[in-house]
């Protein structure tokens, strides 16, 4: 019963977001009370659909390399070859997470200029840390008896990694990707202050013209996307957990 309700809630939210993106004008009466007299209630300088798509593309373009690199690093430092780097990599992750996203974004601008690039770099750098941390926790947190059993059955190091350690660590790794994804979706809105295309454009236009309708539609859309992706990946993690 509860699972059925959850399914309806998920599909309902997805349908609502799609309906708003495909036919935003149908929602005008809802947003009109929040717009100042005579101002448009629906963002009209670019289509919300195209902004959402480019918002998601920036996030994906940053998170996919972040997943590959942090996973590679986590595998490296959890092997005997890289074990020396384990404490240092933990310290760097710990320190790196104290860097505020806005500062990273702003510091990237002098290096690569305005536009999509600084946003991509900031999202990438900020995405690395949670994924790395969780992948490392997953790979180093396995019960010793499991590794022992794999070794005892005559598996080589690579076989142990691919057939035992990675599948068992998968749910924890996915948790890291979820965290990175939510942070990236939210940070990408700040990217619009450096002229990246995305939903932040709508929010900032709303702040600049005191149009709360814009702020609401940009903010709630981003929030809804974050909830859908976070929840979807949670389902994937549950599946991986059941299999593992």
């Amino acid at each position, binding site marked *: 019963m509860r699972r059925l309700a959850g399914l309806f809630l998920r599909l309902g939210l997805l349908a609502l977001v799609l309906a708003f993106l495909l036919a935003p004008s149908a929602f005008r009466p809802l947003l009109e009370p929040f717009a100042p007299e005579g101002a448009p209630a629906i963002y009209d300088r670019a289509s919300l659909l195209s902004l959402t798509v480019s918002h998601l593309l920036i996030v994906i373009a940053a998170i996919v390399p972040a997943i590959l690199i942090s996973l590679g690093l986590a595998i490296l430092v959890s092997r005997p070859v890289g074990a020396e780097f384990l404490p240092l990599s933990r310290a760097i992750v710990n320190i790196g997470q104290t*860097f505020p996203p806005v500062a990273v974004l702003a510091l990237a*601008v002098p290096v690569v200029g305005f536009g999509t690039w600084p946003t991509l770099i900031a999202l990438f750098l900020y995405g690395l840390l949670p994924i790395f941390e969780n992948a490392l926790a997953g790979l180093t947190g396995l019960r010793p008896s499991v590794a022992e059993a794999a070794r005892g059955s005559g598996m080589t190091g690579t076989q142990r990694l691919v057939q035992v350690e990675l599948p068992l660590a998968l749910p924890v790794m996915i948790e890291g990707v979820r965290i990175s994804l939510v942070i990236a979706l939210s940070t990408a809105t700040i990217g619009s202050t450096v002229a990246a295309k995305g939903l932040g454009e709508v929010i900032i236009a709303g702040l600049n013209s005191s149009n709360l309708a814009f702020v609401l539609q940009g903010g709630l859309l981003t929030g809804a996307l974050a909830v859908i992706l976070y929840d979807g990946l949670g389902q994937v993690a549950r599946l991986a957990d059941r299999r593992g």
Partner: protein
Amino acid sequence: MRLRPDKLGVPMGALLAVSLALPMASLRANRIAAAEPQGLFAALPSAWAAGLLALAALAVAVALFARDPRLRLALPVAMLLALFVAIGEAGRTLAAEAGDYARVAPGAGFWIGAFALSILFTDAIIRLDLSPLGRLGVLAASSLALALILMTGQWDALSILAEYRGRAAAFWREGGHHLQLAFGSLAAALVAGVPLGILIHRVRWLREPVLNGLSLMQTIPSIALFGILIVPLGWAAANVPGAAELGVKGIGMAPAFVALFIYSLLPMVANTTAGLTAVPEGVREAAAGMGLTRRQQLISVELPLALPVVLTGVRIVLVQNIGLATIAALIGGGGFGTFVFQGLGQTATDLILLGALPTVALAFVSAVFLDAVIDLLPAAAR
């Protein structure tokens, strides 16, 4: 005996060597002119440049082959200090040649060299396995060194300090706002979050809805939440008697404060509950057996045991708030973000740095400080 180079020493030594070949500083004829890169020997008097090179060679050798962690700490520290003093010297040298409006900023070589040295420095501290008090000592010494460099005017010829001189009063005012926002909302989150965490620890069925609701608030992007709060606070200022006198306004610090408070609640509440849940059942029973009331158990047994986890929540919140408070500038709430966004608007890198560097430093110092404090708590509580 064959000398085997240190695994970390190889990449960091190489990076340090490369950094010396890259431009040490960049020179612009005025604030908005294009930057001309200046190599080590162009930026510094030759005695300085040669000295820096010699010290760097020694630092690379130590990074590659030294085993003693004290030596591995001493050389990066000496080289970092030399680099910091030298960049100020480069500023004076280049500015003297290029005239009053010239702007000198650290170049790629400086930043990459400082990065490689910081990694070696961190690595040496880990190898030394310092106690929490020792780590606090290193933090204090580093802050003192930085303060001395700033106060003696060693960096006065650098462009970021030229930006600072033009707006010193604004810098300290916005810094104050930044601290008020970050620490004020943390205090509010402590006052509200810890009791709420205790409540949902006791009343089990409340736990899931409260934590889910707070998680949902986290998904709203910060700039949107700051903007959305303008409306209810504006309404409150106009309609709730006394609210306006308290400084509640639709724009400015009030919505920023409330937004930071909302983001702070989840880590505070979740960590309080997690800390209390982790108290072993036996301890609870022993406390009850001693005849302590429910209230006494909570205050003298459970909360002290949960303290490290609660403090971890405080660390998360403080670091997060210091970063997010930069966004307040977008809705007129002040803070260091003011300079970041002004700088982005004017494409003035130095102004961006004037806002971003203190923010990064504040977050970093808070994290290291609280980590050490958490480790200092008696082992029984951890």
